[in-house]
């Protein structure tokens, strides 16, 4: 008897065969990653995993993705839908290239390729790949020009072009693409890597279809997406219903240091999410905008890791999501708006507000509050360098070290130091030595930046910082970011934001000059020292609720200074480096009294944050509790210490003590002119409930209006389980 002679259940129903196909699809996606990383010549791919590989359904929904940049999940699907909508004739062996932000790319540097998988004349799916190319032409090196006012001044736009036609490379097209870039060797290697990656995927997928039949493979692909959708919808039903409002800012559009708001109103009903960005600023004159494709990338980038834990990552996670926003905003820009730095500007800030909104729901859910996370690395401060290297060859560097920002704190543990942003599931940066060997760089230091982690009961991870110069006589640097004057890594539930970017240049051994957010391009010599400190992650909970011995350990590790321990955490150290016992009590009471503007001696200490809430009450954050008041019959929002802040709604700011807050120097000393900081405290004890960074001309808004019925239902369910 042999395998072929036995009867097995009909193929489409056999869960075993289906599982085998699932595993193969995941394995093929990983093989695509290996192929890309092996052949690529871009540090963004080889060292930093700033790329994407995936397998797609015939309609462009992605079925699998590697653990790579989550912003990049939607774009190749958009390219595929563009091809389908145009009725492009496709045949086996076609490889299509694109990078147009008004088709689906995040910005022109993100070069994508896709391959239709045609088996026995039928379109069974697609393989897709994309990666960040350091230069795709345009008026300035790196295709990011602060001077640009029109998208046509930026990198070459490729809507959707067949680079390989039925298996034949179109050398004329490749020549045209390589003629447009300043780095033809690097881009040339990468395009070869893309083709190799798609060939691997195509061969393996064809094998799979021949073995099991295209219909079955297609059916399994479809159910992978359906299953992820089912799981994420179930998870959404475990979160309270309501409306969450978050806002973040980016400063400077390359021309003027004006502030742009990205405003997110999240409405969560049952198993659906609607993100409304209508309240965001109009599109900018400069390159900080993103197109609607960038908005989709920013939403996906934050949503996938925040809600998709434990679920295979695919388009099913995005099915319950609607995005609402009119054209012409900073996050839905239309031509002629330039979008060159979209990924690190508008897209990144979209991701910040989506993360902040979703984590407010996690924090208010009994099942998930421990894994709610404050905002991580709220920006990526870019450093590009170009010129002639020591061999006289043109070089171009897109430094990936700025990924080393801090992770946001979690409800139950501190954020990791130098962990990278949430859009990077497997972050990585090159060694200092590797960077110095490949590029004419010379580092003075690369280290963790003390006090850059957002203070809180759980501290945000600290970011890293570098000081470097060049090792050739001259080169041109291109430096830009947001988050020098905006603390983007927002805290949660009374936690403070992480430190802001500080970047400067010391010319010829002189004193460092603050470069501000977007100095743009400037020449460097080996006598100049460029330094930059990246944002830390946000904290969770009042810093005065942090265990003093954890603060002590932070000081010993050098991630919190003694000064910050005393002024931010209220923990003084003795001469021998131990916690001053009285400081943890009286010192902290003085800091709380200062928030309320009262005398410390007459102030009651707050109850410990670990205090259990009464039966039937629901904790929305460390010190905010929703409780059904038997006397009035209304729901109330109270502090853990018993102060009633609101009745009948979760608009708890109505009754909280409001005060103008000054942030620690690493966070607040370079605050943008148009911004103000407001703290909210328990009127009875001065315990910190929230920190709002907002427009100076506007009052802070209520960030959360939850549905009490859904809260009660969740609480009941949690207690039953």
């Amino acid at each position, binding site marked *: *008897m*042999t*395998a072929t002679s*036995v009867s097995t259940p009909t193929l489409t129903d056999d*869960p*075993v065969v289906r*599982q085998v196909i699932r*595993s*193969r699809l995941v*394995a093929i996606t*990983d*093989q695509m990653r290996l*192929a890309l*990383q*092996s052949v*690529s*010549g*871009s*540090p963004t791919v*080889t*060292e930093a995993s700033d790329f994407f590989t995936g397998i797609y359904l015939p309609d462009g929904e992605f079925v699998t993705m590697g*653990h790579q940049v989550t912003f990049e999940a939607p774009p190749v699907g958009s390219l595929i839908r563009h091809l389908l909508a145009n009725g492009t004739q496709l045949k086996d062996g076609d490889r299509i290239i694109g990078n147009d932000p008004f088709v689906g790319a995040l910005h022109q540097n993100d070069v994508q390729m896709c391959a239709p998988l045609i088996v026995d004349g039928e379109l069974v799916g697609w393989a897709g790949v994309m990666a960040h190319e350091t230069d795709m032409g345009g008026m300035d090196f790196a295709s990011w020009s602060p001077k640009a006012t029109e998208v046509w001044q930026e990198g070459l736009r490729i809507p959707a072009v067949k680079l390989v036609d039925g298996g034949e*490379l179109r050398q004329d097209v490749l020549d045209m693409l390589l003629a447009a870039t300043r780095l033809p*060797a*690097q881009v*040339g*290697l990468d395009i*070869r890597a893309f083709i*190799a990656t798609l060939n691997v995927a195509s061969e393996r997928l064809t094998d799979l279809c021949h073995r099991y039949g295209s219909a079955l493979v297609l059916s399994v692909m479809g159910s992978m997406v359906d299953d992820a959708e089912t799981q994420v919808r179930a998870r959404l039903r475990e979160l309270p219903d309501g409306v969450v409002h978050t806002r973040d800012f980016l400063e400077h559009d390359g021309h003027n240091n004006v502030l742009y708001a990205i405003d997110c109103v999240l409405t969560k009903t049952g198993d659906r999410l609607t993100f409304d960005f209508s309240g965001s600023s109009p599109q900018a004159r400069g390159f900080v905008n993103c197109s609607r494709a960038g908005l989709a990338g920013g939403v996906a980038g934050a949503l*996938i*890791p925040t809600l998709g*834990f*434990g*679920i295979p*990552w695919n388009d099913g996670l995005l099915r319950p999501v609607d995005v609402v926003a009119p054209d012409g905003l900073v996050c839905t820009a239309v031509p002629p708006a330039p979008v060159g730095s979209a990924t690190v500007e508008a897209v990144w800030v979209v991701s910040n507000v989506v993360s902040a909104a979703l984590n407010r729901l996690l924090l208010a859910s009994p099942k998930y509050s421990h*894994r709610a*996370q404050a905002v991580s690395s709220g920006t990526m401060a870019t450093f590009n360098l170009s010129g002639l290297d020591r061999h*006289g*060859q043109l070089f171009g560097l897109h430094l990936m070290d700025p990924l*080393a920002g801090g*992770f946001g704190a979690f409800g139950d543990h501190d954020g990791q*130091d*130098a*962990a990278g942003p*949430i859009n990077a*599931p497997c*972050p*990585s940066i*090159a*060694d*200092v*030595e590797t960077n*110095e060997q490949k590029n004419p760089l*010379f580092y003075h*230091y690369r*280290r*963790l930046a003390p006090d850059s982690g957002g203070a809180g009961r759980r501290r945000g991870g600290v970011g890293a910082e570098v*000081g470097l110069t060049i090792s050739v006589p001259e080169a041109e640097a291109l430096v830009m970011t947001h988050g020098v004057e905006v603390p983007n890594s927002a805290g949660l539930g009374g936690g403070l934001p992480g430190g802001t970017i500080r970047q400067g240049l010391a010319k010829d051994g002189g004193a460092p000059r603050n470069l501000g957010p977007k100095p743009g391009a400037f020449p460097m010599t080996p006598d100049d020292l460029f330094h930059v400190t990246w944002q830390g992650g946000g904290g969770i909970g009042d810093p005065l609720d942090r265990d003093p011995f954890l603060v002590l350990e932070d000081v*010993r*590790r050098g991630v919190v200074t003694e000064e910050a321990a005393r002024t931010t955490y209220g923990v003084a150290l003795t001469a021998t480096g131990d916690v001053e016992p009285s400081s943890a009590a009286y010192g902290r009471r003085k800091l709380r009294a200062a928030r309320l503007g009262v005398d410390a001696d007459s102030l009651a200490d707050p109850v410990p944050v670990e205090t259990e809430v009464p039966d039937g009450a629901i904790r929305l954050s460390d010190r905010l509790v929703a409780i059904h008041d038997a006397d009035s019959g209304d729901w109330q929002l109270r502090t853990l210490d018993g102060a009633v802040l609101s009745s009948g709604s979760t608009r708890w700011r109505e009754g909280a003590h409001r005060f103008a807050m000054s942030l620690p120097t690493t966070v607040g000393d370079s605050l943008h002119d148009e911004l103000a900081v407001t703290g909210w405290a328990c009127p009875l004890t001065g315990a910190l409930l929230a920190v709002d960074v907002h427009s100076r001309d506007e009052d802070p808004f209520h960030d959360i209006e939850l549905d009490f019925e859904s809260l009660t239902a969740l609480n009941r369910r949690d207690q039953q389980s």
Partner: protein
Amino acid sequence: MRNSDPTPATTGWTIGTDVGGTFTDLWLRSQDGQSWVCKSPTTSDVVTGVVNAVHLAAQTAGLDVADLCSRVTRFGHGTTVGLNALLTGRAVRTGLLTTRGFGDVLEIGRLRRGTAGLTGLELGDYHLRGQIPPLVPRTLVQEVDERIDTDGVIRTPLDLVSAGEAIGRLADAGVEAVGICLLWATENPYHEIAVASLVRELLPDAFVSVSHEIAPSVGEYARASTTVANAALGPIAGHYLTRLEAELAALGMTAPIMMTTSAGGVVPASTVTQRPVNGLLSGPASCVVAGQKLGQALGTSHVLTMDVGGTSFDVGVVVDGAPLISEQVTFGGADMRVPSVDIASIGAGGGSIAAVDGGVLTVGPRSAGAAPGPVCYGKGGTQPTTTDADLVLGVLDPEAFGSGGIVLDRAAAEDAIQNTIGMPLGLDAMAAARAIRVVFDSAMADLLRAVTIERGHDPREFTLIAGGGSGPSHAWALCRELGLDGFVVPPTATAQSAYGAGTSDLKTTASRTSYVRLPSGVEPSPNDVATIAAAVADTKRRALAEMPGADLSAVTFSASVRYHGQAHHLDVALPDAPDLSAVADLLRLFEKEYEQLYGKGAGFREAGFEILSVRAVATREATTVDAGVQGEPFTRLGSRPVVFDDPARPDDTGVFACRWPAAGQDLEGPCLVQLPGCVVVIPPGGRATTDDLGLIHVTVGA
């Protein structure tokens, strides 16, 4: 036991030992080629377990211990698990000295430490990140004023005062070992040497490791990790080997101890005392080297070794007679630059737990381990494992499992599979057990594909050698998945690492950086050739320095080459004393191998080349013994129903047993052959034959 010769020779005997998490394996071979395998429980001090195994071996061979020991001229030893446990649990307090400004090298960990150890879906769960602390806590890292650049030029001279203060702080903290890793010490070791001598002066009892000796490669994170791991292990390894040598000498052993290394092969124990980090992953490496040796005996140069243990499935690849080597491994959450036999591994083994989540059947990576173990062990396990599935399918005999004398509880396994897997999937217990096996096999097949097809090799050109407790029972299904005709099971299948420790060649490696950048269109210059030739000469000298009987050794060289900008490189063969034409040949060979790997037209010389480093490998072949010793014939024990493909129609399957097969036997499938600690499954349509090495050759039919 095949003790057929009443008077075995009184010298030239070989022992190979390997310390695993549960058992210490020992393989013994007499001068005339008889072999025995023994297993003794691993003890917490490691040494006692090894000594116990030697006693057991003597008993098994029917000799007095002193008599046995006096006959042994080769004692091979691997302590992978012992060293690992020591590193995680009992490593000494270790400090790190680094260049000023870079003291957070282990904290930042290239951002890779945060996700180290996470796989698959875990990578999408950020709440799990950052659980692994750095190898050395920040408080024990001290910075020294100095800086060297990429050319080895001193940019900031070493400040001995700052170094002295840094060492003083480590002394105050009570460190017993010190790692020194300064930037670009690979290009100019002067500062590291000076700091090391200062440490030896100020901390005379501390074990000192310097990065340019321990891991001479560019990239400070892996170099520092390797250096501190080495420092942390040094005192322990030294103490351990001293004790082992003393205890074995007390038994009458005069043979020097040869330690296995991660790179495959053995080195004198004294070498490992200074470089313990090179032994970290030596167990799996020995297993691959054992496969390489068997390949030689079989006259095949392409071998795939598979080892299915309790928690993992390890695969090694031997191409053109040599195991593939990688230079970086991840250990303890850190990147380590240790030349290692390239082992691909997934968390799937006999103890892997099967589960249904959201209608999807998964196997592993969670494992029931040794305790509570599979459900059928009756030691409290409630979640079904692949071993439970094998039992239900009829592959395992409840009465004759392993050497522990456990009777397996088939009914409990069946219940657990029915309830946990069958019910949610709508399958009966047998169909569910088969489903577990198919998913398990398919995951293993994916890994075999990844190491062959995805690296440009056709798996059908390889001989698959199945080892480990579950390997010989699953290999038939993998062969069918990959289109292989069959596989080979050695009689030492469950102790391949011990066999490898006993048979491996002496092998030492040395590498050093030799950075040459050749922009597009630029030919290698005499200067470039001088750089490479100097590196070749230096690595040759160092590889031979650690080799006893250097004049009997062969030395081969390779260079790491890549297109400029790439992170991955290929190791390309290089002759001794290379000249201009040899370097030009090197680049041609690189392009040829590159295209072989990535497809015609994948090469892109317009990017230019980089030659990163040179490695020398010195090998002294172990003496081999003629085969041709008689084994025993298969004994038929009876038959039982075994499910292969159709869960509703099991095949009546003959069951045979044997401890060491005699040559010339021939069995038709379906049948099972129970070897010590494992079961060889021959599927319907398959066939098993034996040769004079005791190997079972299985063909799997259609």
